[in-house]
């Protein structure tokens, strides 16, 4: 890669129709992304169904910083840095739990109310006449800006920045598409998440979520195997859900183009804005009846007919409305990404709906996924392939038209790489805060 003393501008790395390999390979750029991009963007935290009662909490890392989501009172929730105000010990270490009315630090037993304020300090006389209560220490747990839309909680690490609605509001209809699939208009997390370590840069993964043209190539092994097994099934057998999930991975390029795509400001996108490989799943009769009872025939038809492939709230989460599932993207290192996959149970819907989501996630998003294995193989080789000298560029040229980035939002073909270029436009905006960086070897 480039010599250590070289300084380049992000504009030179991210051109309108191609990007320099350093954005995937440079540790220095990765460190700056953590600060400038993940430090400023609204990041997905969790779902309110994971913390139903006051005192319930869950923990996670955002851009390498441990945080806690806690239900404070029935209505309110808060997100704090998971760091004791005293000497920095983490307040809780379980991924989820219940803390009662207060948090108690395991180091010197300082306690905090659910709103983060300091409740008690042992032998507090020792602080009489000191600055402890007047400085940061006395303020208790540091809170982070947080907001939710229909139970999906997001947080922003930076103390100031755009409001959640302004920044992510364009994607709320994609969240509606998931939640409205519940006859009661409510969903809840079903079980634990599938957790994957993927050996690639987070952007390789995020671009792939919008990559129509890879599906029938990379996943040929899975769709062909499903087709072969299905062709040997005795006549008259109902097509099993697993086969129904696997075969459309072989959809042809014409179908993939007709799926449609939509890009929005701030890097957000919908791949499959017209239809998707999920559109052809067989209907579940009991479910449709329940939906019609709740929403009426017309609105039910409207809800069930819109099945985008992937809706990305850039840069941390991708929604599917059917199956009801999300993928959460957490960069760990320049070439290592954690992907968490959460399934959602639509309340008051027949079990078959959740069963399809669970099956889909096992087949497609699990560490044992026979679909993702071929993706992961390619992702890993990209990290290696990009190290070759000669051509430092990654192509994003497909269907590029000069000036396309001027419109904040546009609809296009499913195979247009504008869905990736749009991510890089947002990337450049985030990163350009100080428009230069020092490349590390």
């Amino acid at each position, binding site marked *: 890669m480039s010599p250590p003393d070289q300084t380049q501008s992000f504009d030179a790395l991210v051109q309108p129709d191609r990007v320099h390999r350093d954005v995937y390979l440079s540790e220095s750029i990765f460190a700056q992304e953590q600060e400038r991009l993940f430090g400023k963007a609204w990041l997905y935290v969790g779902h309110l169904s994971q913390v139903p009662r006051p005192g319930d909490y869950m923990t996670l890392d955002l851009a390498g910083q441990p945080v806690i989501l806690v239900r404070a009172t029935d209505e309110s929730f808060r997100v704090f840095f998971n760091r004791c105000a005293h000497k920095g010990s983490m307040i809780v270490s379980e991924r989820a739990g219940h803390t009662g009315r207060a948090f108690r630090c395991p180091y010197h037993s300082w306690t905090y109310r659910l709103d983060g304020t300091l409740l008690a300090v042992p032998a507090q006389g020792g602080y009489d006449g000191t600055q402890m209560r007047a400085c940061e220490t006395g303020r208790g747990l540091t809170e982070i800006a947080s907001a939710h839309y229909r139970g999906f909680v997001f947080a922003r690490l930076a103390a100031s920045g755009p409001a959640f609605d302004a920044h992510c509001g364009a994607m709320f209809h994609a969240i509606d598409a998931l939640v409205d699939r519940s006859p009661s208009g409510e969903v809840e997390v079903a079980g*634990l998440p599938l*957790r994957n370590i993927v050996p690639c840069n987070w952007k390789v993964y995020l671009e792939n979520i919008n990559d129509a043209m890879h599906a029938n190539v990379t996943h040929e092994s899975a769709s*062909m*195997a499903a087709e072969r097994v299905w062709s040997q099934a005795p006549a008259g057998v109902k097509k099993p859900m697993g086969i129904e999930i696997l075969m459309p991975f072989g959809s042809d390029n014409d179908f993939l183009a007709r799926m449609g795509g939509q890009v929005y400001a701030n890097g957000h996108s919908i791949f499959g804005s017209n239809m998707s490989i999920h559109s052809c799943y067989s209907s579940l009769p009991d479910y449709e009846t329940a939906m019609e009872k709740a929403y009426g025939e017309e609105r039910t038809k409207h809800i069930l007919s819109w099945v985008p492939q992937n809706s990305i709230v850039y840069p941390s989460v991708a929604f599917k409305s059917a199956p009801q599932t999300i993928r959460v993207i957490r960069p760990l290192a320049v070439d290592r990404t954690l992907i968490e996959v959460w399934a959602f149970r639509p309340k008051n819907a027949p079990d078959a709906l959740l069963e399809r989501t*669970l099956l889909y996630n096992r087949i497609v998003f699990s560490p044992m*996924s026979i679909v993702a*294995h071929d993706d992961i193989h390619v992702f890993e080789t990209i990290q290696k392939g990009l190290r070759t000298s000669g051509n430092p560029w990654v192509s994003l040229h497909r269907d590029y038209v000069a000036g396309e980035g001027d419109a904040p939002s546009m609809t296009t073909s499913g195979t247009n790489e504008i869905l990736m270029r749009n991510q890089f436009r947002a990337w450049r905006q985030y990163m350009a805060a100080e428009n230069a960086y020092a490349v590390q070897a």
Partner: protein
Amino acid sequence: MTTRPTNDAIAQFIYNEAALVDAGRYDEWLDLFADEAIYWLPLSAKQSDYRGEQSIACEDKMLLNVRIKRLKGPRAYSNQPPARCLHVLQAPAIEEADTKLNRFITRAPFFYVESRGDAQFFLAGRVLHRLRVENGVLRIVEKRVDLINADAALPPIFLFP
């Protein structure tokens, strides 16, 4: 009423099952499963049902067959170079042997190593086999694999722990 297979026959069956996977003899391995069998890796040892919650894997015989056919195909890029695995099993404890119900349940701690190219990783856990006798031979009705780190962020597991 079935004839009770000896404890040794049950143990040999379980060792053979692992050996077939380790040798890559997947079709013979699949033949060990009963028609409605389930191969299940839950996300938690507490999980009592694969319905209603996520699992790392939960496959019927048909999906296992898809998995095997895929591995043999020329376009299974993740199997180039091919993954190899090795099971190291402790002697299985027989938890239940009910000839009336034709149900034999065993549990064994194991190590599982998977390698591909220069990379290698290992998993450890307990494997439960629910078996029955069909036409005089043992068949797997359920194979449940509880990894001790099932809830951890895992690398891709290419074969069959």
